[in-house]
C-alpha cells in the first residue's frame, strides 16, 4: 500500500488559514490502513484545526468527508453537492488522491494534509517499511521475493556490497542488508544458482525515466 504521514500542523494551517469554509477529505484505503488519513484521522485533524482557529478567535467551517477511494474519479464525484459551499479542500489522501480531487474541482484550491512516503508494508504494529519502488520490471522472481531496488541502500542488482555486516546494512545498524536476506532466502529455497546469474543494468524507462508512466488496458477502456 501507499504510506503517508500527517504534515506538521503549522504547514497545514499556513495553507488553509485564508479560507473560512473547508472540506477535509479522507480516504478509506491505504491512508486508513497506515493511520494517516482515514475517517478517524479526519476527525482528529478537524478538532485540532478548530481548536487552533478558536485560539485566534476564528470559527472556520470544516466539513468532514471520507471517500471510499480518493484516486477514483467515481468517488471524487461525491464532493459535488458540497463543493459550492466551500472555499478550499484539504485532502488527507496520498498524492494520487489529492491530484484526482484537484483535477475534478479545478476552481477550488486543494491542499495536501499528509506527506506521501512510500510503497510499503506493515512489519509490526505501528511500523511500516518501504518494500517496492515501482520499478516497472519486477525482479522478485529472481531475488527470492526480496526487492533489491527498494531495500538495498545502493539499489544494487548484484550485491552485496562491502558494507554488509552480520546481516545488516552499512547505513544503519537496524536496517537489514537486502542482499543477505536474498542470499539466505535463495539458499532456503535451494536456488543458490540464481545468485550467480549476473543481472544487467536496469532499463529506467520502465521505472519512469522516460516521463510519467501510464497503463492502457484496451480490454477495459471505453
Amino acid at each position: 500500500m501507499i504510506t503517508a504521514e500527517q504534515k506538521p500542523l503549522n504547514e497545514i494551517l499556513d495553507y488553509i488559514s485564508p479560507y473560512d469554509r473547508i472540506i477535509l477529505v479522507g480516504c478509506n484505503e491505504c491512508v486508513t490502513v497506515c493511520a494517516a488519513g482515514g475517517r478517524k484521522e479526519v476527525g482528529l485533524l478537524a478538532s485540532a484545526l478548530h481548536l487552533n482557529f478558536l485560539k485566534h478567535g476564528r470559527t472556520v467551517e470544516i466539513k468532514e468527508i471520507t471517500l471510499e477511494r480518493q484516486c477514483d474519479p467515481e468517488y471524487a464525484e461525491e464532493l459535488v453537492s458540497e463543493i459550492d459551499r466551500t472555499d478550499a479542500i484539504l485532502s488527507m489522501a496520498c498524492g494520487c488522491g489529492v491530484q484526482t480531487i484537484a483535477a475534478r474541482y479545478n476552481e477550488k484550491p486543494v491542499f495536501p494534509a499528509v506527506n506521501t512516503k512510500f510503497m510499503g508494508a506493515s512489519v509490526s504494529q505501528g511500523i511500516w517499511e518501504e518494500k517496492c519502488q515501482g520499478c516497472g520490471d519486477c525482479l522478485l522472481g529472481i531475488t527470492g521475493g526480496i526487492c533489491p531496488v527498494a531495500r538495498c541502500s545502493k539499489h544494487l542488482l548484484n550485491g552485496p556490497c562491502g558494507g554488509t555486516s552480520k546481516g545488516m546494512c552499512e547505513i544503519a545498524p537496524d536496517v537489514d542488508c537486502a542482499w543477505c536476506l536474498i542470499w539466505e532466502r535463495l539458499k532456503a529455497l535451494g536456488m543458490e544458482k540464481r545468485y550467480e546469474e549476473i543481472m544487467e543494468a536496469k532499463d529506467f524507462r520502465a521505472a519512469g525515466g522516460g516521463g510519467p508512466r501510464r497503463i492502457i488496458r484496451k480490454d477495459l477502456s471505453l
Partner: protein
Amino acid sequence: MMNPTLIGNKKDEQMTFQNKLSKGDFVVLAEMNTPKGVDISDLVTNVRHLKSRIDAVVIPDMDNGVMHMSALAGGSIIRQQGLEPVIHIYGRDRNQMAIQGDMLAAHVLGIHNLLVVQGENIIHGDHQNAKPVDDLNELDLLDMVQSLVKGTDLAGFELKGRPQFFTGCRVQPIRDDNHLEKEIISARAKIDAGAQYIMVPPVFDIAWYTHILKQFTSLNVPVIATVFMLKNVGMARYLSINDPGSKLSEELITRIRKAKDRETECIHIAGEMIKELKAEVEGIMISASGWEDRLPAILDCAGL
C-alpha cells in the same frame, strides 16, 4: 595560506570573452560538439581554422541527449588550442556531487565560462534506458556556481581555493508573446540567481527575432543570439514543423530548394542573419551542427 589564484589556472588574463562582453565589444562564438568517440582530429582542425576569428568555442554536453565525449574534455582541448571554451552544464546526467566536482575540475583545466542549460529529455536521446538524475535544475545550478565561486560547496563546506566562472543562461525557443512573457520572468530569475549573460536560441524570422531580443536586452545583461546554420531542405522542414519557436517560413525553405547551390545558399542565409542581428545584440553564437568547417565561410559572408 596559498594564494588562491595560484591554485589552478589564472583566470583574468584568459577571459577575453567576459572582458569583451563587459566592455561592450561584439563577441563571436561558435558551437562545436565533442566527438562520439576519441578521434578529436575534426574538432582540433576546426578550432585551428577559426582561432583568429572567434572569441570562444561553446561546447555542448551530451547535446540532444546523445552520448558524446564530455564537455569538460572538449573544453580542455579548446584551451590547449589557445581558444577560450564555454561549456554547457545541466542536471540531467550528474547529481550535485558530480557536477560540483566537474566544476572544480573545469577551473583547474582553464575552463572559466559556463552556460547553464536544460538537458534534453532522456527519452529523446540515444540512451533511452539511462536513469535521469535531475538533481539540480537551471536555477539550482546557477546557485551552485555562485556558492562555489564564494568558496563553499552545496553542503556548506569550505573549498580550498575558489574557482572563478563567468556564467550564462539559456532561454527556451519562444513561440508567441504569451510564452515570451514567461521566458522573460524565468530569465529574470536566472539573472537574480547569478546568470551574467543570456543566450537566445535560433529564430529564422528577423522581425520576430528582433522583437524577442529587444525584450531580453532590456534585462541589462549581455544577450547573445544563436544563428543556426541550416544544412538542407529536410532540416529546414523538420525545424519548421517541430520547433514552432524557430519561425522558419515556407519562403525560406523555398529559397533553399530553388537555389542553384543549396549549400552556399545556406551559408548566405546564416551570414545575412548575423549581419541583421549585429546591431541588436552583444554577440552571436553560430551553431553549424556538424558543418563547422563551413564556419569561416559564414563569417566571411557576415563580414566578420
